[in-house]
């Protein structure tokens, strides 16, 4: 079995559940119509192939590049190099993230141009860069992750006080938006690269994760500062969900292709520039290793373009259609349950999720199984989407009503859960909010909001990503607790023989 068939098999099992669920919905409560259904199946096929190729590319190019970068800048043993590298790396990765651009445009829209989208992108990227540098420093000076996160989140919630509730949702969404499909594998690998050098292997293992979590707080702080200084007008409700009437089978894919390609080139460019620059001044890799990474980038490019084509062409349409129709039934219980199952299954198809589980298996030598992490993650996202449905259905239920207690629980848990899991859990928060969530689940949420009376597509649409970023932190830390309890037992019991 070579790598390709192995990846296809892995990806197949992660994309099939969501395909099946949509198929079942189609047969029961929400008939999508034949053209859309057929297109959905075709898109699922593209997603499977694209994801498999992309993951090969990540293994060949993105992960090695991140690890090499992390190692090399640390080995220089100069604080200013580490800080400068953190700021530059964080800034360029964030600024190329398509999710951030989409978010910035929405923000510009709701503030009637008060906050310019370029301004927001720059502020968030600077915030991300600064915190990336901070994250490096934390690892090399052995500052515990839970204390670091406590301070950062307290800061975020203090800044939340003067922030309007709608902006709060945007801020927490931004944290998910910036840690996208390219950024997450790279940032995880950076963290692993820096901490892999540590002599103490337990410290090395637990400090491998957490960098994504720290950098994504940068986005939250950035948006909040922006809103405090810019002030904001009353939010409009100018967003409407366009339900698809497209009947052609192939056309939407052809239309989506150029955009997907552009998006892909855009996110890859900073990484390629970083690679070529560092190869000149630091890595000096031999020819074989150099070519290997370049080929990896080609895989990444092709895979991601195919993946995005499938996702952009159909997943949004299908998502909003399912949402709209299911809300049209007026059965609130059904809406919440549907939300749970969609959340539970879509997360398995998220590209970055596979990168995280692989890294976890590698770092822990297979002690923490990828499947266990996937399960906990899916459960968390399922709960998060179900909660978002509740928020749409119950008018008085505001975002911070579960965001605040949620983060208090998450931070509180980080003091008695194994530190390795704290890092994994908080990173998973950023990992969970990738392109599938941002299209399929977001469209589904907006579809529901469109159909439910009294719900605003815009206000209720925001905040879903924030919820998806929060819940996995709690479920994965619970997994950590279970691991801790189980391992203790195993150590005390004598062998069976």
């Amino acid at each position: 079995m070579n790598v390709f068939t192995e990846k296809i098999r892995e990806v197949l099992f992660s994309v099939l559940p969501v395909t099946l669920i949509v198929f079942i919905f189609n047969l029961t409560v929400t008939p999508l119509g034949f053209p859309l259904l057929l297109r959905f199946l075709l898109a699922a096929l593209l997603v499977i192939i694209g994801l498999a190729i992309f993951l090969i590319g990540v293994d060949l190019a993105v992960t090695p590049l991140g690890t090499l970068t992390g190692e090399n800048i640390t080995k220089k043993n100069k604080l200013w190099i580490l800080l400068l590298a953190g700021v530059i790396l964080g800034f360029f990765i964030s600024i190329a993230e398509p999710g951030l651009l989409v978010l910035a445009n929405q923000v510009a829209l709701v503030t009637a141009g008060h906050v310019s989208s370029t301004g927001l992108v720059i502020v968030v990227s600077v915030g991300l860069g600064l915190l990336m540098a901070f994250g490096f420093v934390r690892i090399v000076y052995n500052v515990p992750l839970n204390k670091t996160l406590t301070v950062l989140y307290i800061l975020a919630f203090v800044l939340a006080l003067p922030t309007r509730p709608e902006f709060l949702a945007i801020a927490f969404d931004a944290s998910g938006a910036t840690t996208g499909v390219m950024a997450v594998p790279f940032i995880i690998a950076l963290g692993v690269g820096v901490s892999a050098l540590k002599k103490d292997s337990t410290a090395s293992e637990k400090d491998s994760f957490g960098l994504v979590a720290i950098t994504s707080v940068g986005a939250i702080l950035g948006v909040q500062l922006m809103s405090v200084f810019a002030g904001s007008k009353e939010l409009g409700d100018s967003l409407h969900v366009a339900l698809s009437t497209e009947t052609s089978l192939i056309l939407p894919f052809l239309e989506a292709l150029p955009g997907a390609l552009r998006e892909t080139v855009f996110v890859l460019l900073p990484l390629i520039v970083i690679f070529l620059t560092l190869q000149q001044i630091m890595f000096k890799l031999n020819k074989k290793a150099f070519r290997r990474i370049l080929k990896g980038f080609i895989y990444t490019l092709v895979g991601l373009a195919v993946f995005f084509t499938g996702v952009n062409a159909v997943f949004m349409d299908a998502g909003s259609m399912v949402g709209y129709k299911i809300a049209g039934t007026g059965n609130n219980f059904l809406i919440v349950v549907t939300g749970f199952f969609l959340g539970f299954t879509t997360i398995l198809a998220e590209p970055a999720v596979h990168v995280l589980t692989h890294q976890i298996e590698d770092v822990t030598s297979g002690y923490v199984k990828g499947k266990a992490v996937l399960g906990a993650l899916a459960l968390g996202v399922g709960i998060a989407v179900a909660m978002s449905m509740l928020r749409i259905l119950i008018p008085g239920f505001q975002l911070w009503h579960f965001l605040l207690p949620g983060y208090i629980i998450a931070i509180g848990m980080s003091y008695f859960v194994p530190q390795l899991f704290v890092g994994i859990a908080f990173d998973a928060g950023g990992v969970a909010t990738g392109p599938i969530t941002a299209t399929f689940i977001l469209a589904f949420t907006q579809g529901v909001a469109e159909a439910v009376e009294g719900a605003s597509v815009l206000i209720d649409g925001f905040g879903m990503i924030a919820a998806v970023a929060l819940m996995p932190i709690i479920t994965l830390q619970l997994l950590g607790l279970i691991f801790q309890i189980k391992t203790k037992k195993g150590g005390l019991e004598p062998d069976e023989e």
Partner: protein
Amino acid sequence: MKSNAACSLPELIVVIVNFGMGSKIIRHAKRHGITGATVLLGKGIVKKPLLEFLELHETRKEIVLMGTAADKVEPVMASLMEKFQFEKPHHGIAFSIPINKILGTKLIACDQAQEEREVEDVVYQAIFVIVDKGNAELVIDAAQKAGARGGTIINARGSGIHETAKLFAMEIEPEKEIVLIIAEKQLTDAITAAVRQDLEIDKPGKGIIFVQDISKAYGLR
């Protein structure tokens, strides 16, 4: 330690399989008297030009180490062969190497010095090469030129006393890669010579090579 366990020479069983299979191997082996096992993660590399051009020639592997008594090797291996079919391509390989002492397990209490090990005809040898991270591929290239068919890379770290250092507030150790190559005995000298020359092993800090006889190998073609 003075249990009724039969006194027998210790052997180390090594099984290399695709990622995710390690736990299954252990579960199966335990039913045949293996008391414990250790799993390492590695990368398997095969020699296939097309796959190599596409950079698809690496697969994630798990390496299972199981120490046991020599007389148990045969039944355990036979049963593993039957269950996991190592003779088929890509199903993994297994081999056992003689070791001198094993402590910490109840099974074996024998002292090597008292008994002469039966000398079987050695067909295969395991070549271990430990080099700095990033050089494993070069080792495999060199070995392949000399006739080896593939190899397994294991990530590792740490080494000689003069290599530890302190960066910022953390103690660091350099990362290493261990390359495990199984080869027919008559090829061993050529392979080690090629690796030694290509990687300048004789210069200090470049790496080390050691070779170990294999008592019995399965799944090699």
